[in-house]
């Protein structure tokens, strides 16, 4: 339907205005006002980058030499399968590099649409870690699978100025078959655990590390030194333009302007280490249980407003007649939350690095 239509129009380079206006303008120019579209542009490297907020719109306009090539795609046709390299995937913002068939002839790998997936794991911070280490993020949230691994004490050999030294370390001792940890293929028995969510485990006891992992279990980021060093990713030296801005996983994580995000990328998923406590108000006049979608969007606005806690509050109401019944209700709600569709909107990232395939554009 919109295979290859080209329009050319001009903008004030120094006062590009708002993305919102630009979006409307695009829709108007193309006479597609009723369609959900994804707007992208080709940057200086020829990478296709999305335009979806004021910031990247401004960036796009200012970097246009001399012409800004804008690509418009229907939202549901956007092919998420070929997005950035591993460094890009780490950005939760998902700087999606859309593949454009018009520019490149590459075999199309047919992968289902992202909403059929939910993320289970990812390798992150590859650019800042030594190649012998691997930082793995496990998403338990909304996942029925247990995390499914055990840790133990052990000794590891370190190279120090005084030669080799044996130091106590924490190791993965066992994987539960079918558990999340095993299914990712990123962790293995005898991998040494070096960090838990950015905090070194050196000097901590097994019990302390256990408690730290459990406390972070909804968004566990563990840095390991894999026992098997043969499968390490050989990184391409070329970094894509935007990767330089991050030096630390948590830093980059927070440095992103959370208020400028794709609407369908839910910030609570991005910030999934910020858990949501459920508050049930009893004894108020009954209301209908709000739809989850409206809920999440309402929570979004609150999150944008508050600088500290990104918590999701659900105003769930139940008949507070008997405790028994209310417990049941909470339960239903809880289980419905687990299959919350919002989780499906985030792009799966793990698989690409797993087999060492690096997609370069």
């Amino acid at each position, binding site marked *: 339907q919109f295979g290859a239509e080209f329009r050319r129009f001009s903008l004030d380079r120094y006062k590009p205005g708002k993305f919102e206006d630009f979006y409307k303008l695009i829709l108007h120019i193309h006479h597609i006002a009723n369609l959900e579209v994804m707007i992208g542009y080709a940057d200086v490297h020829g990478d296709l980058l999305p335009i979806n907020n004021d910031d990247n719109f401004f960036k796009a306009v200012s970097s246009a030499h001399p012409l800004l090539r804008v690509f418009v795609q229907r939202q549901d046709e956007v092919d998420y399968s070929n997005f950035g390299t591993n460094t890009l995937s780490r950005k939760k913002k998902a700087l999606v590099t859309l593949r454009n068939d018009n520019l490149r002839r590459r075999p199309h790998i047919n992968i289902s649409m992202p909403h059929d997936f939910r993320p289970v794991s990812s390798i992150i911070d590859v650019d800042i870690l030594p190649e012998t280490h691997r930082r793995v993020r496990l998403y338990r949230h909304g996942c029925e699978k247990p995390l499914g691994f055990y840790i133990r004490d052990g000794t590891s050999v370190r190279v120090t100025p005084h030669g080799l030294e044996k130091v106590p370390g924490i190791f993965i001792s066992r994987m539960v078959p079918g558990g999340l940890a095993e299914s990712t293929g990123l962790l293995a028995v005898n991998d040494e655990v070096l960090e838990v969510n950015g905090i070194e485990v050196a000097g901590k006891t097994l019990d302390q590390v256990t408690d730290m992992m459990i*406390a972070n279990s909804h968004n566990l980021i563990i840095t390991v030194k894999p026992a098997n060093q043969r499968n390490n990713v050989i990184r391409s030296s070329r970094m894509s333009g935007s990767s330089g801005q991050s030096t630390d996983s948590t830093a980059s994580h927070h440095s992103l302007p959370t208020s400028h995000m794709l609407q369908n990328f839910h910030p609570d998923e991005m910030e999934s280490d910020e858990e949501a406590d459920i508050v049930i*108000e009893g004894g108020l006049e009954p209301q209908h249980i709000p739809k989850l979608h409206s809920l999440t969007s309402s929570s979004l606005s609150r999150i944008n407003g508050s600088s500290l806690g990104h918590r999701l509050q659900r105003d769930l109401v139940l008949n507070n007649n008997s405790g*028994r019944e209310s417990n049941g209700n909470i339960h239903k709600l809880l289980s419905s939350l687990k299959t919350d569709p919002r989780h499906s909107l985030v792009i799966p990232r793990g698989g690409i690095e797993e087999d060492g395939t690096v997609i370069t554009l």
Partner: protein
Amino acid sequence: MRRFLRPGHDPVRERLKRDLFQFNKTVEHGFPHQPSALGYSSFLRLMAIGTRSGAIKLYGAPGVEFMGLHEENNTVMQIHFIPDQCQLVTLLDDNSLHLWSLKQHSGASELREEHRFTLKGPPGSPPSATQITAVLPHSSREVLYLGTESGNIFVVELPSFKVLEDRTITSEAVLQWVPEDYCSRRSCELVEALREHPKNPDQILIGYSRGLIVLWDLQNSKVTHQFLGSEQLENLYWQRDGSKFISCHYDGSYTQWPVSSDNRQPEPLENLVPYGPFPCKAISKIYWQTTKNGLPYIIFQGGMPRASYGDRHSISVVHGSQQTAFDFTSRVIDFFIIFSSEPSAEFDDPSAMVVLAEEELVVIDLKTAGWPAVHPPYLASLHCSAITCSHHVSNIPLKLWERIISAGSKQNIHYSSMPWPIDGGTNIAPDPPQRDLLLTGHEDGTVRFWDASGVCLHLLYKLSTVKVFLTDADPNDNMNTQGEDEWPPLRKVGTFDPYSDDPRLGIQKIYLCKYSGYLAVAGTAGQVLVMELNDEDAEHIVDHAEADLLQDQEGYRWKGHEKLKTRDGPVQFEAGFQPFVLVQCQPPAVVTSLALHSEWKLVAFGTSHGFGLFDHQQKRLVFVKCTLHPSDQLALEGPLSRVKSLKKSLRQSFRRIRRSRVSSRKRRGGSGNASEVQEANAKFDQDTLQEMELAPVQRKIEARSAEDSFTGFVRTLYFADTFLRDSSRHCPSLWAGTNGGTVYAFCLRVPPAERRMDEPVRAEQAKEIQLMHRAPVVGILVLDGRSAPLPEPLEVAHDLSKSPDMQGSHQLLVVSEEQFKVFTLPKVSSKLKLKLTALEGCRVRKVMVANFGSCRTDDYSENDLAVLTNLGDIQIISLPFLKLQIRYPCIRKEDVSGIASCVFTKYGQGFYLISPSEFERFSLSTKWLVEPRCIVDMPEVTSNNHVHNKSDMENTARKSSLGDYGEDERKSGRLMEHALLNDEKVLKEIQSTLEGSR
């Protein structure tokens, strides 16, 4: 995000922190764990106790305490004070000798180790040659005589511990004075006792284990008298005038020997087996004390008939026709008699007997007819029944204090009125700033009220909850019922009785309202008692109610213990706290949380099944709430279900374990070198752990889920008058936190006082918060508009607190084991949090709001959270911004019972158990510090000692003048602080008297 918002190093705050917080382990309360030696100086009137972990503790007048620790952590075998000196010598089981002295330093005396020494024999000699068995500090204060296993007696100089080889008394030298026929029996095997002649310092009596006793002349190095005993010798005792001495023996006999110049080898005057004729156990120590009326006191340890009373730990006192065998609750370590030490006095005139048993200290008044016990002001056996919980109440109003003391004094009428006989030293510590109570709950269903204001933890009053229930214990089963003509004349003394007949009686939670005198006590079998203080004895019926926490849950069966049976009809209660309401939870699971609101007259209680609210004014159950997760089968069945058949035998073996633990574990030590002892203990623990865990340890990493066990376990309950529903009206509310990270909030409607009896209290669930990390909720607190914690009930009514700010918005603080989280009220939305576990891997075990005052200015104080983690660290976290202020390592992380027993006070002090019988007191505050500070002065001494003392004093003076200035500064700071505290105390005194007159 937190880390980016954290402000930089704020020097002002850092300075303030130094003025507010300071960590000190100040004093150990209670009875030393595993005592092993006892010493006494009649000159200083100080008593010394040594322990198996190498600690040495000196006690004098109440408040006079010193503590030292041997680096080796070895058992202290013997303690000997140097005559007429502030010095003592200890012998450890590694055969080392240590010289300790009390020296004044910046105004207070300190106990310090001066020298150590190990006796070495000539090369190639067996270790037994120098194994010290007896120590005699000579009255010249210049030498020590050391009897050894080889029979040789070595002489060492003091304080240098230089061996004076030419003065060694070899067994060969002794034997040449002993008849040939006697010598053949290896009579000089081991030196059992060395005693200096009471009148002639040049003569010492040497007792060898095979029975030979000789009197040795030090001047001429020869034996002047030989006493050819035939029984294995245990000990010797000189009579006061030196004309006779007593020997006591392994076969349970004692012998009196005359010493006169005309007979060099006398026959015994008298040989007696006091509990014969059947074989008796050894008499290990004996005293012969003369009195004016001519009848001596003969006091000896042991000697009981072997077959029938061989297991008793007894000390017999014989005075004329009176004879009593004091029967102690645990092994007697040692004892001494306090008698007239004036050299000019003609008679001993014993006044008291001090007995150190393994588990308690017993002092018997020998002056008063009937020989009653004296109530010790310190060294209380906290563990006379195992401690199951503790509760601290700061700043008790004078009125309540006096009423508790008066109730307690009625219980103590059987004690002697004699003033405490060990009264050396002077307590120069400032008076305690306020009256503090420490309440301990015990396994036998009693609650003990301790005066925790000062250095001496002193029992004020003991409350028993047993009377309310029918128990298995047969009241006629009284061990003490002894007929008049019973032989031996045993009399049980002491209070140590660790064996509870019914573990269901155990106290688990205590809550005392210091303003109203209401006390709530909850126990192992789901029993909750509400009590009121009554100054008179009374007989009344205890109202009884049942709270079914399972409500209509079908198909569950409690397999744990049964509920306690109650006594029907009126029960006689003695003056003190008398129960008037009993609520029993059903199922009768252990009560895990308790809260009392004395103004609303409500008591809330929680178990592993749910929680309930009871109106103790109308005596009506307001509501119950089941917190169980349907899949939590374990909670329903009860923890004992799996071992029920073993229950009884388990209890038996626990008793054995408790007993054997005493002998197998080394005592942990004191504040000074605590870390060393802790290390030793850690090593021990590790060793045992290694034995236990042969398989490699691994830990499962799994997020908490709703299906985990004991999620419904109610961990904390809290009453608050706050904005639960809307921001315009505040109302009474009850908050409950569970093990599964759920917080329930109930809105309460309490009728006004004039209709309090007419209208029912109503409750309605208003909120339920599920923390997503699901960690156990260990604390709930509401902060008022000024971010100050809400005051305690009745605190405002008694003008002891500002009324809370109801204008500004309130905040809710929920403390889970993993996180601290502040929520807004009434709309519960998260405002702030501190994720402790995620950052540090430690979990919150205990949390309490504490008020910290600045040591510099009197007008600054702030509220912070005092937190104890599972690693044994103490952290102070600011309110309301949840910033970590400071962290101190306090308890070893392996010491689970120490961590579990910790209680914080409202003013930044705390207590935890370092052994079953001892509380360590610590302070986090610069302002509120209770620690011993005392002076031991040398009493006036006889002229020939004068030169010595003078040089000693000069030494001390020189040393102290060289002392660092820091100490002086600290001292002056403390003096000022003292003055301030006194002011405050005066203020409070006035307040409480006003209150009393109202």
